[in-house]
């Protein structure tokens, strides 16, 4: 369970990332955060694994306030909160298997990881997770030899190898074409249901949010302007969140390729 109690975040340059956020996300939920770019979606998600640090309030992850965490404690938090990025963020020149097993780094001693001495169970876990996203054929390929969709699948495998209780995905499909986007979202959705991993995804495509989410949170200017289950959402809700009429670019669709470049 994740609880935001009056969380605010001001960046050093004065930009207000989050304003008095109060929200509770339950275990096993699949939450999609929608909003325009700059609305604070990314800041919201990155607060949960403390890639950014809120300046005010209390943020409870599994009952513990994570805001004061530092050093070892912080790394321990990050091992239990996995993250998926818009640009996959794989280490380009390393192999798929090495990228995947790097999900175990938080569980592995420094010396062991430097010399690639992972326990058999870890190797097995990494391989099984690659199988789950159907990437087991390519384990010795270098990451930069893969297509965007394949790279994102490897990054899902990397996150699963962390054995997290929460997965954060920051615009995971913004750089992908529509068919691949649906594929990646399907994998995320399946992992969420099968392993009961709480999943928070940032999206700016309305139709995809509607298709995959249990619950939708809308953000604008660092504030939550909507929070509700997916069946409570109508087109008007999005117009309220975005503060403007819905446009073509807000939809991923299944064939429309024009908006594939993302934020």
């Amino acid at each position: 369970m994740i609880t935001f109690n009056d969380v605010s975040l001001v960046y050093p340059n004065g930009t207000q990332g989050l304003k008095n956020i109060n929200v509770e996300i339950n275990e096993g939920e699949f939450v999609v955060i929608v909003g325009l770019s700059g609305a604070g979606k990314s800041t919201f998600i990155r607060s949960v694994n403390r890639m950014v640090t809120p300046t005010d309030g209390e943020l409870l992850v599994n009952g513990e306030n994570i805001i004061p965490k530092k050093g070892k404690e912080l790394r321990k938090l990050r091992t239990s909160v996995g993250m998926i990025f818009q640009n996959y963020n794989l280490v380009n020149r390393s192999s798929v298997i090495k990228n995947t097993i790097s999900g175990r780094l938080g569980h592995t001693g420094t010396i062991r990881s430097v010399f690639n001495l992972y326990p058999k169970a870890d190797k097995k876990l990494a391989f099984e997770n690659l199988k789950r996203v159907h990437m087991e054929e390519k384990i010795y390929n270098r990451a930069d030899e893969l297509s965007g969709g394949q790279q994102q699948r490897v990054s899902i495998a990397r996150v699963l190898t962390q054995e997290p209780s929460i997965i954060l995905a920051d615009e995971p499909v913004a750089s992908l074409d529509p068919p691949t986007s649906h594929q990646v979202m399907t994998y995320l959705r399946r992992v969420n249901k099968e392993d009961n991993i709480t999943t928070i995804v940032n999206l700016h495509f309305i139709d995809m949010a509607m298709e995959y989410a249990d619950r939708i949170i809308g953000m604008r200017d660092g504030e939550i302007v909507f929070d509700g289950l997916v069946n409570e959402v109508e087109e008007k809700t999005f117009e309220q969140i975005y503060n403007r009429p819905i446009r073509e670019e807000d939809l991923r669709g299944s064939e429309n390729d024009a908006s594939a470049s993302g934020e």
Partner: protein
Amino acid sequence: MMNNEFKLPPKPKSNRKRVRNLIIALILVVIYYWAFSGVLSRIDWSFVNKLSDNLTRIVPRLANPDWAEIGKVTELIFETVFIAYAGTLIAAVLAVPFGFWAAGNMVKSPIWNTFGKWFLILDRTFPELILAIFFVISVGPGAFAGVLTIGLTSFGMLGKLYAEVIESIDMDVVEAMEANGANKVQILFYAIFPQVLPEFLSFALYRFEVDIRASTVLGLVGAGGIGTLIVLTAANRDWEQLGLIIISIIVVVMIIDYISTKIRKRLV
């Protein structure tokens, strides 16, 4: 499947690659063994006893520069800078035609072009000091030998860099001008030079920085500059004067690096 029975699928690694890696590793081990054992056998360990004595004797005197000699030192440092300046400028001008010769997109005949590339490579193979020895023997000791040395060594490097710049230009502009009916010289001045000149100048300035350091060495073989004084001062154990030389060189090099970096930033 039990955990401890698990094995990753085998790596599809070709035997050739493995053999190659093994050979490289083996060669490296041999080279390192050869180099380190050779060096260890050549070291005269007696320096260990004298080291602290030397340090306590010399360092305070180095740190106490003899400012009375500033006139002599400045004069020689200026000579060093002038050698570098004249040498670099000669090289920077001379390298332009050779850069065009070695640029693949400017010379129609690939053989002729390769010839130009080889010429520049040949020039770069000569270490400065070797060229300096040739020039000192042929034109006599003095700063002129230094200018010729710096000019010739920088010329090879600048020619290569220029050629790379020329190869990276936008040929569409050249084509457009050809379509306009411009002749070769017009194309050169209106389509090519504007694209390459800033980078040419930037490389020449960078080379000037390198050449200042290089021309301090020339004095070793009598080709002018401060090098002779450095060796002489150390031989006379005049540590106060050596201290002054060190400070002067650091200051001059830093000033010139600073100015040159500033100009280069504005150029590109």
